[in-house]
């Protein structure tokens, strides 16, 4: 393993795994307790539209995905605030249209063959230095924003009505949460791909919720679990020559089911 770590790409993969786990632990916790898993899935898939657009315009794909998914997250957020009853339908439509747009735009790029699979299922081993330098400030933005507005996020997650009554700008914070989710998703796409984003975003918080008594501890434990899943998945994929993204998710999924079974036995 140490010998392997000397390879730059593996060192970058480990660093990316840690950085992504931090943002996933924090944002994933808020996504789970606010029950906005579906919207997060929508943002992740629609992000492919941004990747296609970036290729079409000849700008860096991560940048394209970031701008596009932030825009999509705001649209989805406004729709879910305005028309609560049909929000899920609209999100589902944006989800699919975003992806379709990405595929068609990539088709339109002459003679360019994009490695679609690496965006769908991730390529943590291909994370470059410059991408790491992009992840670091994104992590910092997420950590700082949630730290500063921690009690407000907690209040709106627990009891939205009460948060409105005491005068917290609930809608603004909700949109901010979705924008941060979009930024988090863009980072995670590099690691496990946009199809598997949801698993890394929700499994660690789901497990953590059962063993913690506060949102902050849930975030910390989720981050630790995220690092454990990413690194052990990475190691297993290296050992058995498997796809890294899918292996990471299967490790997380195995622990998810294990904790579920332990729960059932404990309550039975």
């Amino acid at each position, binding site marked *: 393993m140490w010998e392997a770590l000397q390879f730059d790409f593996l060192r970058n993969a480990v660093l990316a795994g840690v950085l992504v786990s931090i943002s996933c632990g924090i944002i994933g916790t808020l996504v789970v307790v606010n029950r906005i898993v579906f919207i997060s899935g929508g943002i992740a898939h629609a992000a492919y539209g941004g990747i296609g657009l970036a290729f079409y315009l000849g700008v860096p794909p991560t940048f394209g995905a970031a701008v596009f998914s932030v825009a999509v997250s705001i649209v989805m957020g406004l729709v879910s605030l305005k028309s609560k009853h049909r929000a899920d339908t609209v999100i589902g439509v944006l989800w699919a249209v975003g992806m379709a747009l990405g595929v068609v735009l990539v088709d339109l790029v002459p003679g360019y063959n994009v490695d679609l699979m690496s965006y769908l299922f991730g390529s943590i081993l291909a994370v470059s230095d410059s991408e790491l330098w992009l992840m670091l400030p994104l992590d910092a933005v997420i950590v700082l924003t949630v730290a500063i507005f921690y009690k407000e996020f907690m209040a709106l997650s627990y*009891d939205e009505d009460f948060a409105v009554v005491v005068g*917290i700008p609930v809608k603004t914070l909700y949109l901010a949460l979705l924008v941060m989710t979009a930024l988090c998703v863009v980072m995670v796409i590099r690691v496990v791909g946009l199809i598997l984003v949801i698993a890394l975003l929700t499994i660690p918080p789901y497990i953590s919720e059962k063993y913690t008594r*506060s949102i902050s501890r849930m975030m910390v434990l989720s981050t630790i679990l995220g690092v454990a899943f990413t690194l052990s998945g990475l190691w297993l994929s290296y050992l058995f020559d498997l796809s890294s993204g899918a292996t990471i998710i299967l490790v997380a999924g195995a622990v998810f089911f294990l904790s579920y079974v332990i729960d059932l036995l404990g309550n039975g």
Partner: protein
Amino acid sequence: MKLPAVQVEHVCFSYGDNQILKDVSFTLEQGDFLGILGPNGGGKTTLLKLMLGLLKPDRGSIRILGESPLDANHRVGYVPQGTDFNNNFPISAMEISLMGRLSRSHLGRFYTRTDREKAREALARVGMIAHADTHVGRLSGGQRQRVFIARALATDPEILFLDEPTSSLDPEFETDLYSFLKELNSQVTIVVITHDIGAVSRYVKSVACVNRSLIFHSEGKITTEMLDMAYACPVDLIAHGVPHRVLPTHEAK
């Protein structure tokens, strides 16, 4: 002259085609203790949410202490109906009580020592201080309700709104709650939605009956006629499906 605690003028509210409230008007003075009665689905909770600024009236105006409901929100406390939501949420009784200390002007700041003292004091007042660090999921329904009352008290409200606060309380605390509210009423205006006619007769100063429209009684003392009216109100309204006038015995006073 003191501004009225609540001033509701010609308020109408509908969910789609379903008219919930029609031309509701009343004025509640500061220091009053209002019990709101009425049948289920009659619009009690909707009226409360309008006064809190959670809903906006289709027509008419609402002033809370002379301000719009959202501008007055740091001056009111709110105890919602039912507490059986989000029981898996990782949060302690103390953290819930602390929520009462949140406000727009303290956005993004840490809780101060005063905030913590007020939150603890509020928990102590409802007899929940021993459970300050208990996870919300481990509290009984009645205990949760007390924590929610503590959260509203922690705001230091000038008006306290409670939506059926006794619905999941254990009986002995129910009596405690009303005598507690009565004591609190010396400093705070109280508006409580309740099905508990007995409590209304013993503790409140004014009564309102809501079923699409609203009838307001601001008698200083609770009379047997008012008790009759409180009982008669939901029954009468369900029977006719239209708002009724104040009972004759009542007007004869």
